[in-house]
């Protein structure tokens, strides 16, 4: 069975990586810990589920998978509106206010989701069912999980290439390294921050959209990923892409094997590992 556990671990890690990547970009570039990140994940999940349900009967499979991107788009739009309307005013404020503001946004968005989509669950398992199963080393495994890993890999490579090689990405990294200096060099901090926030929100929405074919979209769906993404960020180190990857893998595998071996204490075990790492290395594995 260890093959399946390993693959499950990779699958959990992939979803977590996407979520914490967005959290990490926003944290790194803007210095704001977005407590509403889980709500953006939930918005992505609801939007994707809703879209899939609308078109499942008439659209060809290819369009069905493309429609999952609607989650990314809507989360990006909501992120854009959030940044433009109130996050923007917070850059110069202290940590307490920034956190409380995003906490307010979290409460607000939870109810906005309830207003738009109601309290019921949305089942959109068509993309999962269509792909069927594959045979891996004698174990039957859902192809959709592999699909999620592939998408995450592509998204991860995209962000890595974008941050490391393109001019826009280098400007973003400059801001995260030294905001004042970056301003001094004439970078348009306002627009770049908006861009970073939209990118991070979109990644959260994508993660939510990808998860929805496997579990129904429910109210409060974004809470657990948010907490796990926090652990990933704390363990991996602030604002580090490599840290997010290693942290996500660690948490993913702990979950997968924890569920298999010790289901009762799977979550506490995770916190225990995070706690130990922080005692040994307070700035996280790859923190600056």
């Amino acid at each position, binding site marked *: 069975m260890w093959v399946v556990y390993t693959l499950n671990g990779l699958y959990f890690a992939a979803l977590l990586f996407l979520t914490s990547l967005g959290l990490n970009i926003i*944290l790194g570039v803007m210095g704001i*810990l977005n*407590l509403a990140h889980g709500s953006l994940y939930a918005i992505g999940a609801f939007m994707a589920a809703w879209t899939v349900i609308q078109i499942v009967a008439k659209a060809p499979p290819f369009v069905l998978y493309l429609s999952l991107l609607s989650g990314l788009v809507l989360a990006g739009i909501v992120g854009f509106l959030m940044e433009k309307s*109130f996050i923007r*005013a*917070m850059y110069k*404020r202290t*940590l*307490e*206010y920034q*956190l*409380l*503001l995003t*906490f*307010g*946004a*979290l*409460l*607000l*968005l*939870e*109810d*906005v989701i*309830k*207003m738009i989509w109601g309290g019921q669950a949305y089942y959109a398992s068509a993309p999962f069912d269509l792909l069927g199963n594959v045979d891996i080393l004698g174990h039957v495994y859902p192809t959709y999980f592999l699909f999620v890993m592939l998408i995450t890999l592509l998204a991860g490579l995209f962000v890595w290439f974008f941050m490391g090689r393109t001019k826009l990405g280098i400007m973003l990294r400059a801001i995260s390294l030294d905001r004042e200096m970056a301003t001094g060099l004439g970078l348009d901090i306002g627009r770049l921050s908006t861009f970073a926030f939209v990118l991070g929100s979109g990644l959260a929405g994508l993660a939510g959209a990808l998860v929805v074919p496997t579990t129904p979209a429910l109210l409060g769906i974004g*809470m657990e990923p948010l*907490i796990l993404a*926090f*652990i990933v*960020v*704390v363990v991996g180190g*602030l604002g580090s892409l490599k840290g997010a990857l290693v942290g996500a893998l660690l948490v993913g595998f702990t979950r997968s094997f924890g569920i298999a071996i010790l289901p*009762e*204490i799977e*979550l*506490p075990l995770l*916190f*225990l590992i*995070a*706690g130990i790492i*922080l*005692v040994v290395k*307070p700035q996280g594995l790859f923190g600056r």
Partner: protein
Amino acid sequence: MVYVLIFIVLLFVPRLLSIHDLMLFEYGLTFAIVGLGFNLLLGYTGLLSFGHGAYFAAGAYTVGMIAKYLPEAYRLEILIPAALLFSLILAVIFGFLCVRHTKIFFSILALSLSMLLYALLFKLYHLTGGSDGLRIPLPSLLGISFKGIRRPEFLSGTYYYVLLVLFAFSCVIMKGIVSSPFGKALQAIRDNEVRAELIGIRVRRYRLYAFCISGMFVGLGGALWTFVNGHVTADLSHWVFSGEIVYMTLLGGFGIFEGPIIGAILFTYLKLYAMGNTQYWMFVIGATLIVLVMLLPNGVAGAFVSLFAKLKRRKAAEGSAC
């Protein structure tokens, strides 16, 4: 002097308010104790914890567990020290990890640790009742049993005065702490960590002390809250509940000693009002919070203080003009 007057007025509150309003006021008072404790960390030490629900839950679950497993010890004079003790133990363990960090890392870590407690309370169904939570019967006090008395009567009678005395006691102790050399040292750490360290303050240890004291106050608030509420669930340790504690402290204003008290009572009414009038109460609370952060960063109490100062200045200016 003003405080003594307020205390005397508060003594007569049960006669003035209906039982429903009185219960709300009692919720407010317990949260006021929580806010006082929380503010020692936020306002005076400069550490923002998003996980203080854990100590609230520690106090509340101490009461619940004793009710379930040690009914013969279910006496208020035992329950309160026990709640203080267990919240202290928890605060020492969690605080030891948390105070190694500051700023955002401190917040995330405190949050994660409170979620650890949440996961334990939620998963260990046989011990803690899981998502069903625990029922809280009425405790006895100094040998007096309250069997046969209904909860509203208990709350409007003896318990209100117990609560009030403990609240007053908490205020006096906290006031003593923040104006003691220890409290001043905490404020020095808040304002300039490096400087505080250079003049010989053991920063990390002092932070841990503040964390523990804060945890104990919050635990006391949690224990007292259970008797009003009659029921405890694991949600108390969820970080959204911790967020509400932060909210009420900010609502009142964390720069002022009395701020959290005002904030706690206001928040209780605001939340109930929002819940009673709309199903989208989180929307109302969230929107209020955003407006508050944008427009009244010093909270309601802070706004009053600055308004008062402005009026005074204007009066002084007029006086000198004449």
